[in-house]
């Protein structure tokens, strides 16, 4: 049995700040995360042509890693973190991912020895646990995935991460139907059950190999909701529903820490501020410097409590300013330098609040994720921390309450957003307080409605 969080790591929301966490972590080549300074975490994807063979892929990563490290010393970065999100071949063939990690780490060691630059390497195997039409969370693919973690840990990856898919089969159905109980079931219940299983095993591998079980994100669900919601003028999902999905994703991501993750959490987890309030573990975030990968409506705000600052992903290719990875790592580093100056000169909280206010009223999503409100969501989760269902429901209710209590002259919502919020709140109020009842009712409902739902094959209830 894992121990669930029932209290927060921070006494006050105002204590939460970028660059600092309660429990920093340290990578082999000296980089500390959450120990007082922010570092850029550069992300990249190989060109499609590079995926045809192991040799080509390894050579692509060799080139891009060298490019990044060369730029880092040219511009004087004190440190840099690299994240390799696997393309599917690298996870399905664990030796491919292992070889890439080895080649990258070797280059990073050379630079570390020569210049003393502090570095860390994160590897994120792909969640390959699915067949063409069905999730396959448990079984042969799970074993391959674990072999992939072993291989990259062996080869030198400091931080082990993944973006798991547990609950997604229900989310894909529920999110297109404004089905709020469905979001609680998919993300808060099924997702957390899968997270608990997989992170216990990742932690074992990390301990065995002397690496750090870093963290997960609810990319597959909360980011799906965020992308379907899109920009201000998109008509596919109310942004108030997207932020409810996000709030529910915090207890899911938290389940990874309960099962052994130590941070830094994954960059695309926009729920990470809520999670950091509870765990005190360092987090990566992405926003204004990940516009190469996607658009969001809170690019500055999400910097508020980051420990690593990421660009999410960019294809490796040439730009006028060098290769894409060089350009983006340079931008990340300048962002980090600005944050670190604020810390050194005693202005960190001032800068944090400026970043927050630039987006707090741009959208309901940013409003709830602003650290003061995120902290309230965290409190609602910890209150019933032992009950996966109740804490997810609490998070959703806290999210609604925060939006309803907002200054309507500042956070201006459309009627559409407000109506969706009211409907969601009514649906939440109608939900049971009994986890067992909810779980069995939902099982029955979704077995009937969602053809691809195979609970017995995928979840260890």
């Amino acid at each position, binding site marked *: 049995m894992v121990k669930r969080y029932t209290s927060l790591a921070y006494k006050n929301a105002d204590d939460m700040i970028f660059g600092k966490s309660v429990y920093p972590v340290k990578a082999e080549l000296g980089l500390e995360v959450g120990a007082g300074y922010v570092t850029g975490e550069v992300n990249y994807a190989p060109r*499609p042509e590079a995926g045809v063979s192991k040799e080509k892929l390894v050579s692509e990563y060799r080139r891009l890693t060298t490019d990044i490290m060369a730029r880092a010393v040219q511009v004087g970065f004190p440190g840099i973190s690299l994240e390799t999100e696997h393309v599917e071949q690298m996870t399905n063939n664990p030796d491919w991912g292992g070889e890439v990690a080895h080649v990258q780490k070797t280059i990073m060691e050379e630079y570390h020895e020569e210049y003393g630059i502090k570095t860390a390497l994160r590897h994120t195997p792909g969640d390959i646990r699915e067949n063409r039409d069905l999730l396959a969370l448990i079984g042969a693919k799970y074993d391959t995935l674990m072999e992939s973690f072993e291989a990259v840990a062996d080869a030198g990856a400091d931080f082990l991460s993944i973006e798991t898919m547990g609950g997604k089969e229900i989310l894909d159905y529920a999110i297109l139907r*404004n089905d709020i109980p469905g979001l609680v079931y998919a993300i808060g219940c099924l997702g957390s059950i899968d997270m608990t299983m997989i992170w216990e095993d990742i932690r074992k591998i990390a301990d065995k190999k002397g690496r750090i079980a870093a963290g997960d994100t609810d990319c597959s669900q909360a980011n799906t909701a965020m992308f*379907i919601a899109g920009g201000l*003028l998109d008509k596919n999902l109310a942004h108030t529903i997207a932020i409810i999905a996000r709030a529910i994703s915090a207890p899911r991501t938290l389940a990874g820490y309960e099962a052994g993750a130590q941070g830094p959490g994954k960059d695309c987890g926009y729920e990470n501020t809520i999670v950091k309030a509870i765990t005190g573990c360092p987090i990566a975030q992405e926003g204004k410097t990940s516009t190469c990968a996607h658009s969001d409506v809170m690019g500055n705000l999400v910097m508020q409590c980051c420990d690593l600052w990421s660009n999410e992903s960019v294809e490796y290719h040439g730009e006028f300013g060098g290769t894409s990875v060089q350009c983006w790592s340079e931008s990340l580093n300048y962002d980090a330098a600005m944050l670190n100056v604020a810390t050194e000169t005693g202005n960190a909280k001032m800068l944090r*609040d*400026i970043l927050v206010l*630039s987006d*707090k009223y*741009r959208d309901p999503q940013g409003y709830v994720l602003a650290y003061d409100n995120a902290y309230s969501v965290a409190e609602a989760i910890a209150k019933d921390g032992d009950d996966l269902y109740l804490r997810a429901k609490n998070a959703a209710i806290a999210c609604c309450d925060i939006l309803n209590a907002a200054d309507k002259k500042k956070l201006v919502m459309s*009627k559409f957003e407000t109506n969706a919020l009211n409907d969601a709140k009514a649906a939440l109020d109608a939900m049971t307080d009994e986890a067992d009842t909810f779980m069995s009712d939902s099982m029955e409902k979704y077995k009937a409605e969602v053809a691809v739902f195979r609970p017995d094959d995928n979840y260890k209830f």
Partner: protein
Amino acid sequence: MDVDPSKILVRYNVAKEKAQTPEEMAAEMYPSTEPAKTICAAIFDGEEDDVIEGLEKAIEGGADAVKLIDDVLMVGMKIVTDLYDQGVIFLPNVMMSADAMLEGIEYCKEQGGAAPKPKGKVVCHVAEGDVHDIGKSIVAALLRAAGYEVVDLGRDVPVDEVIAAVKKESPMMLTGTALMTTTMYAFKEVNDRLLESGIKVPFQCGGGAVNQDFVTQYELGVYGEEAADAPKMADAILSGKGLAQLKEQFHKH
């Protein structure tokens, strides 16, 4: 510290919102006679049970079950998709209305013992190697809502399977979705293989990674920016438009 955000950002969605509520706008569009009015309202609200109840009453009152599909259910759904096109209501409302309408159709078919002829058949798929299928599901739902029969091949569909399905089903149109720059090249292969077999079916392609410039590189391709373009293109095909005219209509630059 706090700020007056009005000088920093504009919530254009609020500024652009219509004065009338969606419910008011829908009510103005409902047929004036019963039971059509009540059934249309139930479709708008996405209430399956009320749709069935309305249909029951109508059939008891002597209405022809199969005719109700075109005369009432499709009319109600059209109100919903028109309001979606105008940006008045959002996608989940359309999905819930479509679910309710489709249940209504099933009910009418059972009661009437016959099925009306669908407007046409469309084959939908997600490119080989790609599992991103939410956009495709939206496309399929909107096509069904507009009265088309959809053969949904699912995600990560091998080119061979697409070709086989087109040969078997002879659809009026094929759709493809790709979210990854690595997978969208499968569309070219589908195009070439169809042409080899002498099949000139319009092939509408969309999804995050796909853009018009890419789609214009192969003969059968027509770009679809958003899901609502799929039923629009099917309607255009029904009205007799050929490939060249479809490209003219759906290619913006």
